[in-house]
Each structure stands twice: as structure tokens, then as C-alpha cells.
């Protein structure tokens, strides 16, 4: 009798998940306006260590604005954002920049790699900006490229890669500092079919292994289904979800 066909014949078992229950990112009563137009309306959301949370909702639900406030890119008009218990919404731009480079990874729909740099240099960039020496940063970059199965592209530039490959390089760059939390805004939005599935499978596997929480922004239920729980937004407010 022949063996059933395997889909992932070379895959290795996942490492055990550390289910530490502490909160890595907390947003409380966050509001934000664009001009006179209120966008985010008193939204609250917690993300626990190792947890994968999907923020979903129709277009115009202001999901990305919530993510940018939680990531420390935008400063909310009111409310408070904490990373590992430390209030960051009141921190200076320089301090928030430092935090973003060290404890937060951000991945956008279009990887936004630097076109003049190779994949290895793109991934090493956050470490170099944080003061790491070039050889050590490139060694670390190679390791993270390996985790996303694109080590062979280390010397390639973005215009020599497919969309899926470039997005995996961008994911390696977002993870290279081993952040506490990865913010991923429509990470598979530009990928077709199985390339999206492969991307999500790798993000989940790598994040679980690294002990990194993930906040996914998506309008696609198939992507949200990779998360441990869903937070539903509607018209700028968190409609369904829970605080830790």
C-alpha cells in the first residue's frame, strides 16, 4: 500500500509554544482624528506574549490607524499605549523611534524594501541603524533569511525577486531584532493563491519560535483564521474583542 501524498514533506515539527500570559502591547481608549474627521474612537486592545491577533473589519474601519497608534508611529489624540508596561504614547519621537527599531517589527502589504540594497543588506538595516557592526548584522540577517526560506536570495536586489520572495525578505527584516511584537498590515494583500498561504504559515511559525506576538491587520477571513483570536472593528471602534 502506498503512502499518502504529503504537502510539506521536508517540514520539521514546530517548537513547543511558550504560553506566557503577560501583555506585550496595550492600547486603552485610543482616539485619533484626521482633520475634523474622527477616525479612531476610544478603541482598546491588548496583545499577550506569543499571541497572534487579527484585527478585521470593512474598509474605513480604521484598522491601520489603530495599528500605527499601537506601533508608536502615530500618537493618539487621547488614550494610552504601553509596550511591556512602559507608556510609549507620551514618549518623544526619538524615544519612540528607538523602541520601534528594537522591540517592534512592522511589515506592510508591499514589503517596501530599499531597492538599492541586497536582501541581506535590507534585513541587516535595522541592526545597523541600532549600531551593530556590519559583519555581525549581515550574519544575523542571513539567519533570519534562512528562517523564511530565502537565504539563497541574500545577494539579490528587490527587482530580481518575485512578489512573494520580496515579502518574505521584508518579513525577515521586520523580525531581525527579535521584537516583542510584529505588526503586519495586510501582509498577503499583494500575493496570489498559495504564495499568501506560504507567507502566513512562515510568519506564524517564525513568530511562535521567536516568542514574538503578532498583530495582523486584514480584511481577509482566510488570513484572520491563522490568528488565535479576532478583534473586529467597525467605524473606528473595537466592536468585538476582549482585553487581556
Amino acid at each position, binding site marked *: *500500500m502506498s503512502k499518502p501524498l504529503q504537502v510539506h514533506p521536508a517540514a520539521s515539527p514546530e517548537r513547543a509554544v511558550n504560553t506566557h500570559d503577560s501583555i506585550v502591547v496595550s492600547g486603552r481608549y485610543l482616539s485619533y482624528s484626521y482633520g475634523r474627521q474622527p477616525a479612531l*474612537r*476610544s478603541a482598546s486592545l491588548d496583545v499577550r506574549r506569543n499571541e497572534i491577533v487579527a484585527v478585521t473589519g470593512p474598509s474605513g474601519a480604521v484598522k491601520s490607524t489603530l495599528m500605527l497608534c499601537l506601533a508608536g508611529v502615530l500618537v493618539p489624540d487621547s488614550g494610552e499605549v504601553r509596550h511591556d508596561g512602559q507608556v510609549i504614547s507620551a514618549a518623544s519621537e526619538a524615544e519612540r523611534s528607538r523602541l520601534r527599531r528594537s522591540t517592534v517589527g512592522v511589515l506592510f502589504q508591499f514589503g517596501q524594501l530599499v531597492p538599492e540594497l541586497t536582501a541581506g543588506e535590507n534585513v541587516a538595516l535595522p541592526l545597523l541603524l541600532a549600531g551593530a557592526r556590519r559583519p555581525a548584522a549581515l550574519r544575523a540577517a542571513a539567519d533570519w533569511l534562512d528562517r523564511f526560506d530565502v537565504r539563497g536570495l541574500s545577494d539579490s536586489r528587490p527587482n530580481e525577486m518575485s512578489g512573494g520572495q520580496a515579502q518574505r525578505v521584508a518579513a525577515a527584516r521586520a523580525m531581525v531584532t527579535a521584537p516583542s511584537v510584529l505588526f503586519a498590515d495586510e501582509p498577503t494583500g499583494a500575493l496570489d493563491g498559495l504564495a499568501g498561504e506560504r507567507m502566513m504559515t512562515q510568519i506564524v511559525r517564525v513568530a511562535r519560535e521567536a516568542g514574538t506576538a503578532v498583530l495582523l491587520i486584514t480584511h481577509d477571513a*482566510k488570513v484572520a483564521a491563522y490568528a488565535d483570536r479576532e478583534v473586529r472593528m467597525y467605524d473606528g471602534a473595537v466592536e468585538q474583542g476582549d482585553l487581556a
Partner: protein
Amino acid sequence: MGLLAGEDSHGYDLKQQHDLTFAGAKPLAFGQVYATLERLAKKEFVAPVEVEQVDGPERTIYGLTAAGRAELERWLGDIQPPAPPVANPFAVKATIAMLVGDVADARRYLSAQRSAHLDRMRFFTRRKTDPAVTLADALAADYAIFHLDADLAWLDAALERVDALIPASQQADELDPTSTTRPSTTRTPT
């Protein structure tokens, strides 16, 4: 016949092979396997090629005939007609919820149904991304996920239609009792 295409086999092994290949499906009854083999033999799609006896009763090994292989190829090339419109129990429930209750009741029902669908989708996503998943299981999981996704798209659209029945001022009150705004002139929504 698909299972016989690779190698000749007897009923017992065919049943085991079927249950292993289509692990998500209902296991075949032995009687069903032997009845099917007899029916296919009568049509000359399969034929006995050998009788073996190893520590037990005699087992007839069947092989696919040329006619059987042609029939298998015809079946593989046969396109299923797309499913006709089917009854939608979710729409019926949402409508009845509005008849016996109000918009909020319909909304509660649709939101709860949406959560249940997403939970089921998580189950199939975990199954298809399991490192040890077989091709048959991954295909079955994909099939379930895409059907659930179609229902979820309908549930989202239904929620939007139901929301449109709520006056805008009431929506803001319901969803955002404590919102505050601050004027600014240079921002753009994301």
C-alpha cells in the same frame, strides 16, 4: 478505479488505501468495496488478475482494464455543473430575528454566526498547515475554507445591510460612547 490505476490490488487493501487517502471522508464498508468491484467487473472496467492466499481466506486481486482506464480518464475530464442556488438558512434566521425582534437581534445573530464560521475556518487552517498534512487532507481543508469564506463574505455583506437600517447617530452611540476628537488639518486616513 483511481486507486487501482497505480497498482493491482484486492478489496481489503483498497478499503485501507481509500480510508488513508481520504482521511476526512467516511470510512468505506468492506461490503461496499466488494459490491463495487463486482459491478465494475460486470462492466469490464476491472478484471481479476490473480488469487492469493496468505494466512487466511483467498483474496482476488483486481486490475484496471483498458476500458476501465478510458472510463477513469473520461470521469476525470468530466466537469461538475456549478451548484444551483441553494436555500440560505442564515438569511432566513436573520430575517426572522428582525420579524420577532429588531435590527439589534438580527445583528447579534449574524455576528455570532460569523464568529462560529471563523472558528471553523481556524480549525481547517490549523489542519492544512500541520507539517504532517497529507495532500488529500490539505485539499479537503482548502475546499472547506473557501466555502466558509464565501459564507463569511455573505455574512459581512448582510451585517452591512442590517447596519444601514440603523440611523448613523445611533451607530456612533452604540459603538463609541466615549469618543473624543481633536481638530487637525494635515492628516490623511489610513
